[in-house]
């Protein structure tokens, strides 16, 4: 087990090197328009150095004057020693900006994930146990509709109906206009009110996959020999399903839950952007669109690290919860 984990970690680090190199190379090959714009602005100031000197200085300070490999090694060194650089767009250290916005995304994502699990698992089980019934058809169709709904379209539709026509919620933003005058409970309620539509969007558009996964797994489990044995020895149907089948269904769910962990931290790009929620997703979108290399670099590395970690964690947890799985 220990050897396996060590091997996986080493492999993950190797993969991470490759991924960061690819990202770095791609970012470096882009036209460095932001640096040029900034040099232009700086050189336009009265008594400033000429443009050429500014651009050289900026390129040097961001390590853009070296070759790609040398630049990547410099970046790697900085990254490893905890120097993540300053965001060009937000003009604060990247890590500070991250700290500002990440928790909002996390809270939003966590609420959405819990709701998804609470809704999708029971529905998936119902669909599987009543296979071919009307409920099964409805749930399967519903799940597929959820998968097929374009998040941006669904979010806009929600905005039109609930924010514009019914005026139950604000169209966008995290806080209302009179946020500053509210007491702490009122502020909490205000934020909750603003997060309602984004969370609904997140839940509806990602619930389908989980529902189908649960249903498929449950069907597989229900066909297993030990379920037939349980039935044969005369257990009640509810006991068979909720005691014998359900627990075994939970095991494969570890994979899908583990896979959605990085999403909690990386934010929901489309939903946050559409609702102007200042979380990780929207912030990173703003940074990426203007070509903020330090921020984008850190953001993508962050996602890559989280993905690798969650894969590793999922495999380990899987082995722990399912004694049939042996890892060498």
């Amino acid at each position, binding site marked *: 087990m220990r050897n396996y984990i060590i091997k996986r970690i080493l492999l993950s680090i190797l993969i991470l090197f490759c991924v960061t190199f690819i990202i770095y190379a791609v970012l470096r090959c882009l036209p460095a328009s932001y640096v040029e714009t900034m040099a232009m602005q700086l050189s336009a100031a009265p008594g400033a150095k000429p443009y050429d000197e500014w651009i050289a200085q900026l390129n040097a300070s961001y390590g853009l004057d070296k070759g790609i490999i040398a630049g990547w090694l410099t970046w790697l060194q900085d990254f490893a020693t905890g120097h993540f650089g300053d965001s060009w767009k937000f003009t604060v250290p990247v890590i500070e900006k991250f700290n500002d916005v990440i928790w909002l995304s996390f809270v939003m994502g966590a609420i959405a994930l819990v709701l998804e699990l609470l809704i999708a698992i029971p529905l998936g089980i119902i669909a599987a146990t009543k296979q071919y019934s009307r409920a099964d058809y409805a749930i399967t169709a519903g799940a597929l509709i959820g998968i097929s709904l374009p*998040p941006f379209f669904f979010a806009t539709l929600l905005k039109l109906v609930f924010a514009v026509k019914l005026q139950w919620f604000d169209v966008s933003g995290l806080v209302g206009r009179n946020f500053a005058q509210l007491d702490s409970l009122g502020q909490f309620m205000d934020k909750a009110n603003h997060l309602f539509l984004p969370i609904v969007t997140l839940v509806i558009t990602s619930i389908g996959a989980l529902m189908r996964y649960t249903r498929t797994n449950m069907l597989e489990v229900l066909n297993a020999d030990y379920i037939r044995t349980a039935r044969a020895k005369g257990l009640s149907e509810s006991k068979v399903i909720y005691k014998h089948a359900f627990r075994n269904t939970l095991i494969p769910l570890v994979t899908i839950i583990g896979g959605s962990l990085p999403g909690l931290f990386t934010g929901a790009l489309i939903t946050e952007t559409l609702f102007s929620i200042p979380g990780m997703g929207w912030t990173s979108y703003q940074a990426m669109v203007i070509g903020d290399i330090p921020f984008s670099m850190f953001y993508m590395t962050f996602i890559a690290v989280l993905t690798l970690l969650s894969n590793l964690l999922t495999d380990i947890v899987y082995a722990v919860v399912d004694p049939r799985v042996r890892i060498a």
Partner: protein
Amino acid sequence: MSDTKNPYTQDNGSAEELSLSDDRRVKTLSPGMLVVKRFFRNRLAVVGLVMLAAMFLFSFVGGMISPYGQDEQFYTYTYLEKEYVGVTQNEDFRYVSAEGQEFGSAAQAQFLMAQMTGKTEFEYKDVAYEVEQAGTDFYVVSSAGAPLAIAYKDIVNASDGIDDLAFEVKLEALRLYTNGEAGAFSAGGQDYEVDEGGNIIQGEEVLGYISRFVVQSKVNGVSISRDFKERLEEELANDVSEFTYTGADGEEHNYTVTYDASAKIWSVMQETETYVYNQYSNPSSEHPLGTDTNGMDMLTRLMYGGRVSLIIGFIVVIIETVLGVIMGGLSGYFGGWVDNLIMRIVDVFYCIPSMPLIIILGAAMDGMRVDPQVRMLYLMLILGVLGWPAIARLVRGQILSLREQEFMTATEACGIRISRRIFKHLIPNVIPQLIVTCTMSLGSVMLTEATLSFLGLGVKFPFASWGNIINDVNNSYVLTTYWFIWIPAGICLLIAVLGFNFVGDGLRDAFDPRMKR
């Protein structure tokens, strides 16, 4: 199959019963037919198939029968109100001096003092002036009995094309007009006439007119005709706020008059017909879904947009599949270090955050001003290259189990070459799973493309795609007012993606009967 009424009779129609052991009683279906049969038994899958067929017809046939082009713009006439003239009523004295005489501003000030205090004479620079009130707001200033200057509020305008009128003519005309009289007068040895409307006439010719209104043109290069001014004065006197006037060129315009009491200015707005893009027009028989922000027919854009979205979906999936099958096939068949290497590449690709990367590349292409058509190609390549690892994994997994089977040993024993063994004997066995995965990923690729286009980073104008049509809702006015701009595009997208998912789901169940349904 041959006889649906009674499958147990012979084909030649004789009613003779077949014996139970007769082969003809057994219906045989090829595996392919079984799959088809199972597929069509699935109601959701059939619904999906119908949805897809509808969307394909809509996009590919619809574009052909639509009377409009993809980027054909429509125009319309709208009425725009532009400020045409400003009218003020003259409240100040104006002065004209006789030929060769001076009546400067200092003298004018002295006159004003005298006029206000009601004096009939004043002195300025040792010259004595006499002031005679010759009519309403009309004074004649004379020195030593001879008229030197006149002060008046009713302005004497020369007609178009006539030089300024002589001092004497003005004097005599005003003398009559300001007393409310009309009639003939003579000045400078010639006979003139002034009528009730203030026109100064010599013989048949109208030389000028008297009016207290000052009309200023607010439009560059347009001089206001006398006829219009007269009409305008008439309307102003009647306190009319709207009137219609037909100009000399025969064009009829509507005018609206507003009066600004504090500035004492009437401003007259002219309604002009302007030829503009038919933006956001409501659904009509001509444009069943209205027109978009560029004045293009929405329904036609939707059809062409569907083409683009579907074609992009297909090309991306083809790229993914080709790459995935080759890499997965090699990896699965050879195993060992090849497998290890390819699988590590797959791991790396899995780990690359694809959405952020695509967004950055899209923004970069924006910055480089890539041609929209080239951009579409890049988009397909990027999506395809980022999407192959999933298919490679699937193919590899299947091949790993297939290559241990006897038929593979047989191919090896027959000495079939390796590429043939992989692509002729192994890959066909993966086709069912491949078809299912491809169908499902068609839906998700279309969603990704739509999302990017929605963000303005995918398919760009002048090309339409369902995503960039919805992009218009970024303008909140469109979101709330013009539902016909974005809701149909969203529904089309939903139907197409849902169709692919339903069909993919149905195919999976049909191919793999163990998987129920």
